[in-house]
């Protein structure tokens, strides 16, 4: 399932469209997180448009791969990817964070089919994904379980309890991804609470660990394929991403972790995204 060039180009364009949607929905919502969703747009695109075995028309399909989003605050990227994949109409993304919306500020399982779980409070996703994977293995199910985490939530004890558990029970049907963008709300992760050597820590807990450029769809797809070939161990993909990826002036700036663009900034960001960083002439002006 390695990507041929044409498919890769198609996915990269899709990722760009998803970034545009993220900026539009955050401007409309007036609150929410910007950097994480933009940084993870490539991985979400790869998941929803290439990796996951899923059915947008039947989100509860029993054999679907499970995608657990542990760091619920980046859910705008998930909503955007789901809308583009056909889970719900694209217009609905503009209801993000509004009263009565299915698109809650942090994801709630019972509100929108396809979310798998409720998250936001950090550190609890890996254990839930491990629970899914354990149950699936008991029943000899073939689907895979993916868990996306932030690096900030590696501060949380619950994360490491989950890592111990998955290592002990050799959950080979579980693939976790850490969005290694080095930022959290109060600053850089290595200032707040140093995590390195992060990969070695997971290896010591019994995991197979891969490090990739998380803004490369090709590298992510290859890593996921490798994980499928690893037995007797869960796999962790440490995905180095650039927070705010796609909008030069905010890339890497931790101050963009937890705020949305203003209407004015949104216009500027969209101009940049729609010209693919100046590579093509904008047709939206």
């Amino acid at each position, binding site marked *: 399932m390695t990507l041929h060039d044409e498919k890769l180009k198609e996915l990269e364009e899709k990722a760009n469209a998803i970034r545009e949607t993220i900026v539009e929905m955050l401007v409309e919502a007036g609150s929410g997180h910007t950097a994480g969703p933009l940084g993870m747009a490539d991985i979400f695109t790869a998941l929803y448009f290439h990796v996951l075995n899923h059915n947008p028309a039947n989100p509860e399909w029993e054999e679907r791969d*499970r995608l*657990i989003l542990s760091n619920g605050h980046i859910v705008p990227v998930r909503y955007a990817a789901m809308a583009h994949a056909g889970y719900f109409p694209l217009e609905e993304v503009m209801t993000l964070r509004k009263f009565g919306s299915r698109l809650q500020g942090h994801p*709630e*399982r*019972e509100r929108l089919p396809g979310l*798998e*779980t*409720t*998250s*936001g*409070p950090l*550190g*609890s996703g890996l*254990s*839930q*994904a*491990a*629970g*899914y*994977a*354990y*149950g*699936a293995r*008991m029943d000899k199910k073939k689907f895979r379980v993916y868990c996306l985490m932030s690096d900030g939530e590696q501060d949380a*004890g*619950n994360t490491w*309890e*989950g890592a*111990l*558990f998955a290592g002990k029970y050799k959950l080979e049907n579980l693939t976790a991804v850490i969005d290694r963008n080095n930022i959290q709300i109060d600053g850089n992760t290595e200032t707040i609470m140093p995590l390195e050597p992060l990969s070695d820590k997971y290896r010591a807990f019994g995991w197979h660990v891969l490090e990739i450029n998380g803004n490369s769809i090709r590298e992510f797809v290859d890593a996921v394929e490798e994980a499928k070939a690893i037995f007797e161990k869960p796999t962790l993909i440490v995905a180095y991403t650039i927070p705010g990826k796609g909008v030069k002036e905010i890339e890497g700036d931790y101050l963009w972790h937890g705020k949305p663009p203003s209407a004015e900034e949104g216009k500027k960001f969209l101009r940049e995204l729609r010209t693919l960083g100046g590579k093509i002439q904008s047709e939206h002006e």
Partner: protein
Amino acid sequence: MIYHNSRLRADVFEKPEMVPTRDGFGKGLVEAAEKDERIVALCADLTESTRMHWFAEKFPERFIEIGVAEQNLATVAAGLANYGKIPFIASYATFSPGRNNEQIRTTIAINNVPVKIVGSHAGVSVGPDGATHQALEDIALMRVMPNMIVLSPCDAEEARKATIAAAAWNDPVYIRLAREKTPVMTTSETPFKIGKAEVFWESDDPQAALFATGPLLYNALAAAKELEEDGIGTIVLNSPTIKPLDEQAIVAAAKRTGAVVSVEEHQIAGGFGSAVAELLAQECPTPQEFIGVRDSFGQSGNPQELIAHYGMDVLHIREAVRKAISRKSA
């Protein structure tokens, strides 16, 4: 006298059999698991102490050891439930639902998945282990949680029934258990249904109603018997379900008697008595006395002396009934 429909054991006041409620849970879990293979059990390094070991011995492939990690206990179970299993998670109540309260809130209650949380060693009757291991806040923590059912069985037999009922219930459920051996009052014939309170004692001319939950029900019955001998009639209502409260039964008993006493081995603040008071304040304001722990932690000691020290013995219950009656307006 003992209410005929309660089908209590005949020897309840003579020489009752003494069994801890955690034993009833352990038996009930095996019974429920025999009928439903979706049931799995997870424990945080307290398997024998919570009586989950009977399940683990019988269904080793459905038992999951988590280690001393209560947050993981709750969240792995949430994942299992989300997948389609019916997980029971067991630990001491101070740790689960104490230490892992937020995980229960987000991944079990908001998610609304059928995880059954079993908190053993509730109350000061845990004894020598002291305050750190005596859960006095768990009812409050769990009854403020939307989607959560809260059960507090009065004896081992009721704990067995509560466990079987919880397994068949499609929502998250909390079951509160005790360490100490306590009298077995009920029989297999005694009615039990989630959401229902049952009259266990009814004097001819009741002047007060006792609402009790958990093993302290025995003290409430003993107090009722002594009060009746003194010419003071009461009703004793067993309330194994704290949430949802059996509003109809509680309001009816309050209206009939005009004075009530709540009995629980828990902080008075936020506990079962508070739930009763919230209800009666709206439906039928009634003088109420509270038996429970008054804003303090427990300590080491033997169970009987601790129950007496914290004002939950038969003597204190009798006094509370007299006081409640004396507060009725003329």
